[in-house]
């Protein structure tokens, strides 16, 4: 699953008049009370245990057990042959190899951070900017939205293919266009053609353009939904106080939207760490397109099947993602009415 979304609890004090009002019959939050178990029959209690227990078991068994196993396996050596008893404890050896010997590791870390930086400082702000513009009830706003959001419904694997048609050295749009414009054939001739996806100094940036193509629309829709939920009286009050559009946004709207800003930030970070499909379809994540996610997969599926070693890369990925996850949980659970 290349797709990803973040959830956020509805705050008990949220006015239901805005976006939420259309969804549901609402009730004043203060009326809410907690039902005690004591009124339940024995059968009801069993039903509840089943209702919570079964999904929780599946989730824990297939997500958290492997996560913990990744951490444990990262201190071991195992090639998967000959059962669990063949697992050897080797302490921090895997991490030492990762740090000093395994060549693709540092490039992958660097590429993941370049990815994150590009999303964080270019794609995400662009999506937010477009959302702010579209929020002003322009004519045709729906059409603009539909167009910009379209790439988001495509998988990153398809995005990879579609952009290969743009970047391919001999058959791609860019080089063919350059040929026609300059009246030569050197742009598509092997040897003189620029190989946008093959050149390891260029390909990460080329891929980032393609990935941003999809990311901008995603952020736009999330942010637009946030903007629509802002009480209009805030804008009116700001206007009466003589604030211009920029001041209104930065001084009033942006701070009010703190919860959605957190969502946007976490979406951006996690999407950058999850990136996989697009580089995998382009060149299996080699030669300039190394990413941590790909290295884990290569070590798992490779002939040697270095399970302990692959797990140590997974732990690095886990350590990088755990910060934003905890930050997000902290921010959202604080608002949880309990």
């Amino acid at each position, binding site marked *: 699953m290349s797709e990803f979304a973040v959830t956020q609890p509805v*705050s008990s004090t949220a006015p*239901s008049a805005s976006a939420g009002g259309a969804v549901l019959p609402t009730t004043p939050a203060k009326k809410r009370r907690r039902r005690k178990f004591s009124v339940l029959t024995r059968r009801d209690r069993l039903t*509840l245990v089943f209702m*919570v227990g079964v*999904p929780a078991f599946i989730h824990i068994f297939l*997500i958290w057990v492997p*996560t913990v196993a990744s951490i444990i396996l990262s201190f071991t050596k195992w090639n998967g042959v000959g059962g669990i008893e063949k697992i050897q404890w080797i302490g921090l050896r895997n991490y030492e190899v990762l740090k000093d010997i395994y060549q693709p590791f540092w490039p992958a870390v660097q590429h993941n951070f370049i990815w994150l930086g590009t999303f964080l400082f270019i794609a995400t702000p662009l999506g937010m900017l477009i959302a702010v513009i579209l*929020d002003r009830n322009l004519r045709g706003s729906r059409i603009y939205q539909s167009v910009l959001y379209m790439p988001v419904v495509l998988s990153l694997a398809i995005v990879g293919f579609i952009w290969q048609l743009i970047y391919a050295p001999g058959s791609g749009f860019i080089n063919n266009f350059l040929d*026609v414009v300059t009246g030569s054939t050197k742009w598509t001739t092997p040897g003189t053609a620029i190989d946008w996806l093959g050149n390891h100094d260029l390909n990460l940036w080329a891929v980032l353009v393609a990935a941003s193509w999809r990311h901008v629309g995603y952020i736009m*829709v999330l942010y637009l939904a946030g903007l629509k939920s802002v009480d209009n009286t805030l804008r009116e009050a700001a206007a009466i106080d003589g604030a211009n559009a920029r001041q209104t946004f930065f001084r009033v709207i942006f701070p009010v939207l703190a919860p959605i800003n957190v969502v946007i930030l976490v979406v951006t970070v996690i999407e950058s760490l999850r990136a996989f499909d697009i580089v995998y379809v382009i060149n299996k994540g080699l030669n300039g397109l190394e990413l941590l996610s790909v290295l884990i997969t290569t070590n798992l599926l490779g002939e040697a099947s270095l399970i302990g070693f692959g797990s140590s890369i997974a732990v690095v990925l886990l350590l990088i993602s755990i910060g934003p996850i905890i930050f997000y949980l902290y921010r959202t659970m604080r608002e949880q009415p309990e």
Partner: protein
Amino acid sequence: MTANATPVARAAAPVASPEKKKQSRHLGTHFFLTVICITWLFPLVWAVYTAFRPYSETGANPRGYFSVGGAYNFDNFLKAWKDAELFQHFLDTLIVAIPAIILILFFASMIAFAVSRYSFRFNIALLMLFTAGNLLPQQVVITPLYRMYLALPMVSPISDNGMWYDQFFGLIMIHLAFQLGFCTFVLSNYFKQVPREINEAAVVDGASVWRTYWSVLLPLARPALAALATLEFTWIYNDFFWGILLLTKGWKFPVTSALNNLSGQFFTDYNLLAAGSLIVALPTLIVYLVLQKQFVAGLTLGSTKG
């Protein structure tokens, strides 16, 4: 389906008259947006254009790809459909996606109902666990999961090799596990807004917990379920990673994962590659264009207040 949670609806609503006067001043903005939209559409338009042209017209000089004229036809689409056995792969996608979506919504609504209507000591802990699980990069779990799938047994009609690995069942289970977090959160927020009096009325009428859930609360959640189903379909359809990691037999690959082989088959023929990619992209584009409201609602239900 009456889901109208989309805040976007407001954008289309007629605006107050002072706004109209401003429209003329928005020329620069419209210009900016038009340029961006054209840029955004271009890769797709280019793929469509390339897909309709035979390789013989474009591959060879002097015409090249950046040109007009020559033949335009559906040959690439037909060939891609046949060569890549796309029918089989579409079928595989449905075999995985339909049970997965039903199970996800069923389990997520159960747990959401329980945590939002009754208080447990570990309510919040459970929600945190689910949310965190939803945010983890899949690659963190894949190595042990892969070994678990090889080791776990499964009975014969469900598994044809006695394992979870290389089975539609295994794929359904991992989608279920990963997607539960998102859907649970969205649905529990949804249920929390349903008046508690409805619960109480059901209890007074002697309804059991199960009946309150199944006959009272679940029908009320239909708009949210519709929105989530649309979203989940797209996500599962678009899954590439689980497919290529947890399956091995070529014919079993859901259509997005099958693309991985497509690149090998269509190595040099970019016209064919364009056609194949577009066929695979089409279902999600159609779902998006037809069910845009559900789609955006599902996404924003989870990310904003309401």
